[in-house]
């Protein structure tokens, strides 16, 4: 994987899009294939939805409720449909469908890359990977709110590799500088044709993050080597109510539960999987009532180690992308950045003592 950094950005072709051409561009994409983009949800929330009308697309949004994973690992997914009497089954037919994700924040795509790793590793899972095929991503820059901390986990505003195009907002108006990141992007621009290449090359505007981790992201796994027994876990657990929101909305969480249900005719049925999470009480409970992570401090610790250590040890990357969902939607106002910073404090005091 080669990182595109600002030095390379200058070599990319750039096009100027105003509000109208952006709208036209979405419509142009919609004619080609299915387009998925952020839209309003409820009164003050957003979600990624299939676009029915280009005007519904909202490009200025802090984050959606569910991350992009819902398109590749649906919240509720039938695995098999079976016939009880005949003891036969059919697997759910999953087709790889062309789709373009438009208006995607860069951390969101990083989340997908992490999930790709998890679903390829060991036993590559066809359900996820088939859905994942034939997806193109068009990125957009965003203004970090008090929950975003992507920069702190190594995803600065100018990390745009993996997108085919990237829209960077250049003024307070709805104008964008569009960077062509790969040949697919160039093809799209060429066949759209209504915009002009800009010769004086720009950089992607740096963004100011209010929410920051105290230590460089390279050193976070190292902190996690030393804080397994930290008191921080107990402190957090006093406030956490174990609702599981932070797991379910996490862009890189992918644990699931599987249940069978029989239809009312007592003949047909389905085996279905659901998003699940390690913060929930029954997650690690086995027959006989033994619960291997009964306490909330154990569960919180497991959740964070999954993000910063366990998978990282294999993949070499942090499996937290700094979207801030777990903190924004936590009903107990628990902030993951605060947890990490407390752990870092704990770690530095330890180091000083030694």
């Amino acid at each position, binding site marked *: 994987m080669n990182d595109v950094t600002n030095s390379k950005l200058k070599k990319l072709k750039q096009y100027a899009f105003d509000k109208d051409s952006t709208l036209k561009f979405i419509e142009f994409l919609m004619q080609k294939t299915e387009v998925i983009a952020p839209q309003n*949800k*409820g*009164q*003050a*929330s957003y*979600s990624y939805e299939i676009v029915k009308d280009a005007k519904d697309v909202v490009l200025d949004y802090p984050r959606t*409720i*569910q991350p992009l994973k*819902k398109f590749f690992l649906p*919240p*509720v997914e039938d695995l098999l449909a079976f016939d009880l009497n005949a003891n036969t089954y059919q697997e759910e037919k999953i087709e790889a469908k062309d789709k373009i994700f438009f208006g995607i924040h860069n951390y969101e795509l990083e989340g997908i890359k992490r999930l790709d790793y998890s679903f390829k590793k060991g036993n590559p899972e066809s359900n996820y990977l088939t859905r994942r095929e034939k997806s193109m991503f068009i990125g957009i820059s965003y203004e970090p709110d008090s929950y975003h901390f992507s920069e702190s986990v190594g995803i600065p505003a100018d990390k745009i590799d993996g997108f085919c195009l990237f829209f960077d907002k250049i003024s307070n108006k709805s104008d964008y500088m569009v960077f062509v990141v790969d040949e697919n992007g160039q093809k799209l621009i060429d066949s759209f044709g209504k915009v002009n290449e800009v010769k004086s090359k720009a950089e992607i505007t740096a963004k100011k993050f209010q929410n920051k981790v105290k230590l460089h992201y390279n050193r976070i796994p190292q902190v996690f080597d030393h804080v397994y027994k930290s008191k921080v876990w107990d402190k957090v*657990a*006093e*406030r*956490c*109510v*174990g*609702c*599981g*929101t932070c797991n*379910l*909305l996490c862009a890189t969480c992918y644990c699931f539960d599987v*249940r069978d*249900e*029989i239809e*009312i*005719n*007592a003949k047909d049925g389905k085996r279905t999987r*659901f*998003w699940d*999470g390690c913060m*929930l*009480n*029954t997650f690690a409970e086995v027959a006989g009532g033994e*619960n291997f992570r*009964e306490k*909330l401090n154990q569960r919180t610790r497991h959740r964070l180690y999954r993000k910063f250590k366990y998978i990282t040890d294999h993949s070499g990357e942090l499996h937290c992308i700094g979207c801030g969902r777990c903190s924004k*939607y936590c*009903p*107990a*106002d628990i902030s993951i950045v605060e947890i990490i910073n407390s752990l870092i404090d704990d770690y530095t005091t330890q180091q000083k003592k030694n």
Partner: protein
Amino acid sequence: MSKPKVAFFDFTGCEGCQLNKLNFENELLDLLELVDIVEFREAMDDKAEEYDIAFIEGSISSPSCVERIHDIRRRSKILVALGQCAVSGGINAIKNLHPMDEVQETVYGKDKYLFPSIPAQPVSAIVKVDYEVRGCPMSAPEYLHVFKSLVLGRKPEVIDHSVCVECKLRENECVLDKGMFCLGPITRGGCGAICPTNGQYCIGCRGPVSNINKNGAVEMLKKHGFSVNEALKRMKMFSANELDKKIEWGR
């Protein structure tokens, strides 16, 4: 294989759960194919001697109810508590928060001994309950699941995750974000988060999740602008028995 004999019994409650059972208009005839309904006072005259599955609705709140539920238990192979009144005492249990004597006196004055009353109790306080269908009203999908499972000789799934989980699965806008209060984080799911889905906050009608963090819950509600008392009052609307027994709230 002969069809299982199924009976429905009602104790103190609003009978909304009874009614809910008749609200499966699309599935009702299919359900009837699977079982013999042998007793259902609200809908029919017949009575039977014993039952494979007895569904009990309502809380136990008078001495004669106690005798009746013992009798039903003796005659039933599987007994299911249906709806929050039967599962936890439900909303009836609010009266338990006040001394019984006082409640009776307000109601009957000097004649309080005419109509004996006892605290509203869950069925499980009197007899063994095999399975539960929670909710006020009972959650329709959960009832169908339990009914089908038992008729097919299978243990039903017991849901013990929060309502938030189901909200998240549906990608609902969180009502907390709208500045409302919500009991979803500490309430047992299984209802499909139907209240937040309809823009309303979760009033906790399915009772708390097991292994609940009591102090955390109070802290959470305090953060949303509730006094400890108000928070407790809200949490106990449907769970006076469960919360009072198991948990000493923030005292």
